């Protein structure tokens, strides 16, 4: 397949770009594979890529119910950061950020990882305590994160309102300069193209309807799909919001709930917002895309739903906060508002690893933060599928932690103030 670079682009420009081939094939499924990955989002496609590239396992199929990258990969606000508090999370997300930093080159596909910095605003004394705890822990874990005064925060992000009389004044901010954003669709396409190049079959419009298991051992032997039965030695489910539905077909109940998560963009404007800003206290995050749209995320709706549609009140509540912190955006206009389905675990950390069913592995529970983890998640899940054992980085993210109580609860660590 043609490499992507300036030379090939210019050469194609002279002949009307007629020489480009398909970025990935559209094969019919084979009778069986070494590994089947259920779910063609970034995590699933990335898993296939690393299985092929790192572990040399190329007899792999990715089964996607709809079109690849059509779930949360294509619906999120693309924020990438690794300044998590707990060692387990910090190692996982930092592993991911390091992979992000070389991903365009690794995939030969520009995913536009833009390290413009992610800034988290502290609005009260409790926020200050929590964010400083993060800054110090991150530093000891080798994750960059620094504390900024309000003035420093405004210097980094000029539209920020640091008036002390604001309803939620900015008392400071934690900044991870290596954090940023990426072009979400390109991540799915880049992984798909790279995996396809190594022989992985990407099969779209193929829904998994059931699992076949060995009556003697209980082990998975393959999946029933809308394109017929496909055999597999190992199956990895990476189905995000639909994980519960898929796993139920394998007879496994998961500690997951699926919620609508909304986001919105404004009409495009010239560069006005240089970084990513998050405010947990008022529930909002914002950045500006390369196209010029302000990309704004909200919290989840309160109820379980697979409808990919939430209530208007979630968006208006988020915009209240955005306009309070950035009053100049009041006359901007919302262009598009959409929803995804996020699968949330009780401790809001992912589950990556084995299941009670031999040969069946799962990678889920990323909640509202899965995009940033895409390369790291895919990399360690590929390791788990290839070796049958977790990578040290995903070893703590077991299903069993809910039994032992060894939760990895980042949100609880940021407990609301007294």
């Amino acid at each position, binding site marked *: 397949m043609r490499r*992507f*670079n300036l030379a090939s*682009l210019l050469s194609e420009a*002279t002949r*009307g*770009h007629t020489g*480009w081939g398909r*970025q990935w094939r*559209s094969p019919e499924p084979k009778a069986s594979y070494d590994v089947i990955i259920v779910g063609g989002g970034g995590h699933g496609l990335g898993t296939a890529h690393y299985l092929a590239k790192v572990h040399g396992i190329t007899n792999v199929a990715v089964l996607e119910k*709809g*079109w690849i*990258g059509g779930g949360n990969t*294509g619906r999120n606000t693309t924020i990438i950061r690794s300044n998590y508090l707990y*060692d387990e999370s910090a190692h996982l997300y930092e592993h991911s950020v390091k992979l992000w930093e070389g991903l*365009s080159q690794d995939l030969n*596909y*520009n995913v536009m990882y*833009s390290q*413009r910095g992610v800034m988290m605003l502290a*609005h009260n004394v*409790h926020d200050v305590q929590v964010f*400083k705890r993060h800054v*110090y*822990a991150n530093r*000891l874990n*080798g994750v960059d994160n620094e504390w900024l005064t309000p003035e420093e925060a405004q210097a980094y992000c000029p539209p920020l309102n640091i008036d002390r009389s604001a*309803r939620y004044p900015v008392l400071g901010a934690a900044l991870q300069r290596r954090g940023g954003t990426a*072009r979400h*669709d*390109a991540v799915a396409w880049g992984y798909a193209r790279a995996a396809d190049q190594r022989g992985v079959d990407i099969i779209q419009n193929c829904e998994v309807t059931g699992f076949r298991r060995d009556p003697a051992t209980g082990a998975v032997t393959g999946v029933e799909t809308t394109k017929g039965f496909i055999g597999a030695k190992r199956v990895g489910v990476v189905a995000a919001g639909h994980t519960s539905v898929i796993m139920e077909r394998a007879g496994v109940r998961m500690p997951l709930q699926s919620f609508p998560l909304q986001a919105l963009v404004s009409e*495009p*404007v010239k*560069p*006005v917002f240089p970084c990513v800003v998050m405010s947990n206290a008022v529930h909002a995050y914002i950045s500006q895309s390369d*196209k010029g749209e302000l990309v704004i995320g909200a919290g989840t709706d309160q109820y379980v739903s697979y409808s990919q*549609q939430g209530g*208007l009140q979630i*968006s*208006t509540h988020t915009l*209240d*906060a955005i*306009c*309070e912190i950035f*009053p100049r*955006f*009041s*006359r*901007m*206009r*919302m*262009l598009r508002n*959409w929803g995804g389905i996020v699968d949330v675990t009780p401790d809001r950390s992912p589950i990556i690893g084995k299941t009670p069913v031999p040969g069946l592995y799962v990678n889920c529970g990323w909640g509202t933060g899965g995009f940033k983890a895409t390369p790291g998640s895919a990399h360690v899940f590929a390791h788990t599928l290839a070796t049958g054992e977790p990578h040290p980085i995903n070893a703590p993210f077991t299903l069993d932690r809910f039994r*032992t*109580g*060894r939760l990895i609860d980042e*949100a609880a*660590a940021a*407990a609301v*103030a*007294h």
Partner: protein
Amino acid sequence: MSRQPFRLERGGRIDRSRPLTIRFDGETFTGYAGDTVASTLLANGVHLMGRSFKYHRPRGLLSVGTDEPNALLSADRGAGRVDPNNRASVLEAVDGLVTGSQNRWPSLAFDVGAVNDVLSPVFVAGFYYKTFMWPRSFWDKVYEPIIRAAAGLGVAPAGPDPDRYAHRHAHCDLLVVGAGPAGLAAALAAARSGKRVMLADEQAEPGGALLHDVTSTIDGVPAQDWVAQTIAALDAHENVVVLPRTTAFGYYNHNHVALVERITDHLPAGDTHGAPRERLWQVRAGEVVLATGSHERPLVFADNDRPGIMLAESLRILVNRYAVAPGREIVLATTGSSAYTVAADLKAAGLAVTIVDARLAVDCVADTAFAAERGITVLPGHTVVGSKGRLRVSGLIVAPLRADGSVGPRRTLACDCVGMSGGWTPAVHLFSQSRGKLAYDAGQDAFLPASHAQAERSAGACAGTYDLAACLAAGFAAGAQAASLDETRAFEASPARTGFQPMRVMPTDVDPGRVRAFVDFQNDVTAKDLKLAVREGFHSIEHVKRYTTTGMATDQGKTSNMNALGYVAGLLDKELPQVGTTTFRPPYTPVSFGALVGPSKGALFDPVRKTPIDSWAEANGAAFEPVSLWRRAWYFPEDGEDMHAAVARECAAVREGLGIFDASTLGKIEVVGPDAAEFMNRMYVNGWSKLAPGKCRYGLMLKEDGFILDDGVVARLAEDRFHVTTTTGGAARVLALMEDYLQTEWPDLDVFLTSVTEQWAVIALQGPKAREVLAPFVSDIDLSNEAMPHMSVREGYVCGVPTRLMRVSFTGELGYEVNVPADHALSVWETLYDAGRAHGITPYGTETMHVLRAEKGFIIVGQETDGTVTPDDVGLGGMVSKVKRDFVGMRSLARPDLVASGRKQLVGLETLDPNERLDEGAQIVVDPSAPVPVPMLGHVTSSYWSPACGRTIALALVADGRARMGETVHVTTPGGFARATIRNPVFVDAEGVRVHARDS
């Protein structure tokens, strides 16, 4: 000053008696009331209005509707009232309005960015995915900034928005969206039912397409007269509300429809009288009738984007509604019949018209006959292969289509304006948002509403009905049905010219890979971009859309989606539905953040809860801090003091004399009933059965997962009555959790819960002199140590008002918490404060409260604990009842990880340097020189200068902390590490003598 050379002598719905002027790119233009900015500019011969997103191609108006992709302007209504990306087509002309073009430099006519147009062979769809990867560091520093600066259309507003925005929740039995013929008929039908009807329309006046229909009649009267009669009829019904300038933009669950009403933008600056700029309506409708009309499709041919090339029906609107001649020599290019009506109206207005019809002559016989009757030249069986001109179209290049499908010789039709009509696309956006299912109708080449998800009906053009009489009848029937009336009605109306042959891309005689025929105008997506996407394997329409960005501009693909979908389907040799239709998302047209925010800004962004004593604190110079929704006095600086000095002084006052503190924000719950003690036993870790009335006890509450949720002092007022306190932030959470258990797990318990947080204000008097100052004001209560020891409660009177007086202490000193009814609190506070002055009474804030309790090693939930801390972790394991069979969280405490060794435990820390104050949140390590990742033992939870200790103190959670007493550890600081020693967390009065102070 311009003289409107392209204004027609007669006609239009403009008010020629009310001239106005607007400015565009520094020039002044005149128009009339009723004009839009676009019609004003066109009346003055200005066609060049914008530059496209990517290639900076010169662009003029494409449409006079909300689907306009090109003519996006900044609008300036005075200081702070500047916003970008306004569609000139729907922006009402207001006297004095200042507008400007966007995305060009240095000027609209000469734009340096147009170099991108020259480079367009390189800048094809998705080119950036293929390059800009080397060297790696160049992405952030070089490539991306250039890409970002080139994108983005207009400029974001620079300052805060001075305008006001309103919200309104409304309910109706029937909401009709769209006041064209179908919508008006629907409202008319429903009006007589007496049910509540709302009729919303995005235009300045109701009527829809009838506003530019000067030839049709309805039931014997001219169409526009019928509109006026209908509006008058609706106005006569009190149950009907008509909302012009109101766009229904979002259709949410359970018939919740969001609309935005534009209230002042069409008024001159001085005439707004403080009215809100916009109003967000959130309507819960019993039934909805969608009568949202349809959008005309452009034709896709080479250079179809020159200024002066517009949608055909838009020309008709310009002529009939605005009395504007969009050109003098007009060519209409079409694949369908509606353009012939346009041609007739243009001709009637005195403009020269030629029709180029891509249909073969045999397929448009009736239309050509109609044209011939009016002396209009038609070139049937002709395709369009290009256009001429630069900043304005000067000619249309056409060529005959031969029977074998090949294209004959070119010829150029000189013109100064082109109208194109590629057929019609029903506006099913709201229907699709309602999650109704669409079905493709091949006969109409359109996706039409098929199955409904909500109580909704579509009528008129949005349901694929184009004939006027049929639209009226369908609208009437929909309105009647929605109002539960069993009525239908036939209308007599002039027949409309309908029907078209879909043509995705006009046949051409050159290599289609070389020409640029635009599908999405704003985002500069051409047919060959779509072809490239398909070649590269992007076969789902969602993939094509995302790869090429077609349909993702500010018009959300209203003009482009069907052309793109049809073209891609053709390339893939599939039926349209197999390629899919992209999902329609709210909003239908962009909606200002301001309207969505409404009143929720500034003081109304979030309530600021204030205690009854807040005004005293403010008058006495308090600094405040926000704690959940409350604002609390943080410290009371005296002249020139910083926080450190003020807190040191306040602390000393409490330890040595008397402090007064407003603790009113504490959550309070009255737990009443015969089973109150049993309920408390189940909710808290400790036992309550043996707590005698008149006594208080510190209670600790867990979540079911075993981690600390909340704490607070509980007073037993009677056998069946507890006064429970919670943390300030936890009040609502705790009450909600208690109610949940009570109602759903233990409904058999005879207990009732009532929030009394705001019934009782709490004045804490803390310090050795507390009793002395308080005593003279208390009646009915014996304050002596024997009669009222530490941790007791009495009911009586203070300053003549009822009190629940508790002898409790969060400071380690003799203390009382004086609960008084809130309206009396300020008066009681002032009385006690005045009396205390002789004893040096000192008001203190939350910071001093925190220091005093830290000196005593008392935890604050949320500071010493987060959601992962057990009672044992903070040294309160002894409180956990060993005899209770069950309480919330008990079982979880036995989980393996909660009893494992190595858990973090609460300890005290003393820095080696007694003046060094650690950062709260600082991490604790054994070996600071260990390689990264450095293992961490725990973190500092609280850290203060302690006046009582004369040094800094800190509390921390440290792994196996209680086994590490005396160990020296290293604690992170902004610049490195500080050394500190682990110690017991109680720094002051470890024996607890002071709280039991004897009577003085």
